[in-house]
């Protein structure tokens, strides 16, 4: 029996929302019985970007803002893995937002959890793109990643949870994992995860969240309804939570990988099977 690293103790401030995200992830991995060695957690850089150290799985600390392309590379190299990308709102919506758009567009079957706290926790509290009327340009509206997700035609799973609502968050994390693991595509879960030190939004968000899962009239498979609902709630100063949209669209790995093929991550040292193909390439170069 080979032993591995001892999962770290979280380094977060007491009360940080990120604890909630970690709790939900732990719960979901356990509930779905996903083995640590089959799980790859990738995280960006930020306070949020240390979650990958705490769960005993494979963990990778990506460059700031680049967790999604990295996760795509990993998922394509080994589609048997449960790939979970994670990070902060600075990481995902500021420096990383271009990759976010393109990942929604590509629809690879992996999970992406953004811990949204409206601030750059690790660098000591600068305003992030989800901060309304930020210091540096008081006119700016907060970025709403869910409506952004709705605007991308290939998006298939858009959900929002709240660190202050752990049961719902557990459920949403499970649903996100199921979506990705069943090969339906990119499961995006934003968690309202307050930074108690630099932007304590617990009471504010507590009052604003509106759980769409509890709304019987709501149909999460209707993209237009989803958009309209988000806009209406925004006007009412409410924040929608729950599974806001779920649908189907071809996935990246279906387009690029042959079903059932050996993952390219598992190097075959025996190249003899490829030799005839290499010979043919060489032949084609002869003059």
């Amino acid at each position: 029996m080979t032993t591995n690293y001892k999962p770290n103790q979280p380094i977060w401030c007491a009360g940080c929302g990120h604890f909630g995200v970690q709790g939900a992830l732990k719960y979901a991995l356990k509930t779905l019985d996903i083995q640590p060695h089959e799980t790859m957690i990738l995280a960006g850089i930020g306070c949020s970007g240390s979650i990958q150290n705490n769960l005993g799985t494979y963990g990778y600390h990506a460059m700031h803002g680049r967790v999604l392309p990295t996760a795509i590379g990993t998922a394509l190299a080994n589609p048997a893995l449960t790939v979970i990308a994670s990070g902060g709102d600075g990481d995902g919506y500021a420096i990383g937002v271009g990759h976010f758009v393109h990942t929604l567009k590509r629809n690879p079957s992996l999970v992406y959890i953004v811990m949204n706290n409206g601030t750059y926790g690790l660098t000591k509290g600068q305003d992030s793109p989800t901060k309304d009327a930020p210091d540096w340009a008081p006119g700016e509206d907060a970025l709403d990643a869910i409506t952004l997700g709705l605007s991308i035609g290939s998006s298939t799973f858009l959900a929002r949870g709240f660190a202050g609502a752990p049961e719902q968050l557990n459920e949403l994390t499970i649903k996100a994992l199921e979506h990705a693991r069943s090969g339906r595509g990119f499961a995006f879960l934003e968690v309202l995860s307050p930074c108690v030190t630099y932007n304590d939004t617990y009471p504010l968000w507590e009052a604003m969240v509106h759980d769409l899962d509890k709304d019987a009239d709501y149909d999460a498979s209707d993209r237009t309804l989803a958009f309209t609902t988000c806009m209406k709630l925004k006007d009412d100063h409410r924040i929608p939570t729950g599974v806001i949209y779920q649908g189907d669209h071809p996935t990246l790995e279906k387009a690029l990988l042959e079903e059932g093929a050996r993952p390219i991550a598992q190097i075959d040292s025996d190249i003899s099977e490829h030799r005839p193909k290499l010979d043919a390439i060489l032949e084609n170069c002869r003059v």
Partner: protein
Amino acid sequence: MNARTQDLSAGSGSGSATTARDDVTVMVAGQGGDGSLTVIAFLSRALSQRGLDLFRTSNIASRIKGGHAAAILRGSAVRRGCLGDKLDILVAFDDEAIEKAGPSVADDGIVIYDVSRGPLPGGILPPTARVIEVPFGRLAVRDLRRDLFKNCFGFGVLSRVMGLTDDEALDCLKHRFRRLSEEDLMPNIGALKNGFAFADDLDMTTDHGLIELPRLEKEDRIMITGNEATAFGFLAAGGRFFAGYPITPATDIMDWLGKRFPQFGGVAMQAEDELAAINMVIGASLAGAKAMTASSGPGIALMQEGIGHCGSAEIPLVIVDCQRAGPSTGMPTKPEQSDIGLMTQGAPGDFPRVVLCPGTPEECFEYGVLATNLAQVAQCPIYIALDGLCQFTYTVPAFDLDSVEIDNGKRLSDAEISKLGEYRRYAITEDGISPWAIPGQPEGMGLMTGNERNEWGQVSTDPANRIAMVDKRARKIDSIRHRLPGAYEWGDEQAEVGVVCVGMVGDVLAEARERLAEQGTILICHRPRTLWPLLDDTVDFVKNCDRVYVVELNKSGQLAQLLKSAGAPAQKMQSILKYDGVPMSVAELVAAILEKERAR
């Protein structure tokens, strides 16, 4: 026929007599759709069948479509990896071709000019050149209904000029159009034959061409570019993941792999930008796939953060830099060797890296394999530095696939992991290399990060740990040093004068050395093939020479700086620099060396 041959039986001495040539440079030039590249492709086949070695390059102007396109082919009995000084033959489909290429025609050169679009511009060609005026375009339309066929027509004339047999010429068409139906092939053959007939009228029969080429033993050869050869090496070494973003002149690599990967189960991704590209490659690589990216100046700049990160996080990575004329967007289609500083010193902090620098397609292939292996072995970024050679086409001996050995370094099997007792991703070892499990392997869980970390991968700023980790990473380079390619050295060991160059300049220097030797200037030549770490053989070379010229394609002498920073004595070195976007010619290099020697 309103053709006219000017000076055909006059000109420089030998009249219309056949000249024996074992080295010939031919350019075909015209507008984008004129088929210049096709004519050169026909000719490549013919000369290759004669056993000549080939070197080919094309010149596509910046105009987006149409605009001027030229292809140049050199065929020679001795292998040459550059063009001749002058054009022996110019096939010009329009006056612009004469205006642009005319000054490069040799005094005894032959010009085949398509008069369909206008008369030959005067005063540009050397007065002693022979001009054959043919209305290719007009005749192709008249006889075959399509201007398109003028390339075959032109090749008919050209093949007679070059003393090829009709069968040889026919074989070229058939080989090139081997995927065409008989029906589609016919008019092309018709055009070729019209070309023959036209030549007959000018009294250029098969055994009475203007040039006579030898027939040589032909070894098993292929024709390939540096980009293709590099991609091929990567594929042969088990490379299975590529992500890139279009950029001249690196895009070929993505295309080449994109076409061939599917049958190998490999994946070539066009990313949304270079940041995504390098990070996709990182993601695939840390998951276990052999992965590569390729780009050029601006893209390589954007990848610097990722490259340094791989150096820190110990992630295998192969990066091809197809260097082009910078800075910034610079001149995207022109070659240069000006990312040497960037590759060897770019990215913040100290980390292990290797920069391999091939000078021939064989080396491109070989280093494609080597880089893929070294990346696995040393778990760090390995650059392959290409220059103009990435787009040049060469005939070279067919690559020896039997020689390809695959090295997966310290990748652990499941069984090995379970025997470890304890798995630490960044275990400190004597050779600096940590045995490595990939995600998915039971009991192999570990943490990977670009932060400083302890052996388990847990972030640490402990000073003692820091020193141990930096030293560990640095040791990797020592562990693989013996596998890094030393310089290619040639010439006279007794020579006082040494010349150092890299990449595409190597073949130019080879020929320059021969010419200089004939004139009594004896050189010893040295082409480093690993730029980082710069190996001792290069420093020793400079030390052992009386004086050394460092020849490179950039303004600031980046290679010379590199040599000096590695300890080569500055006072022995002088730079010969070229940075106008045009490859250095043999004549230029000969002149530059002679000038320096005279100035002593």
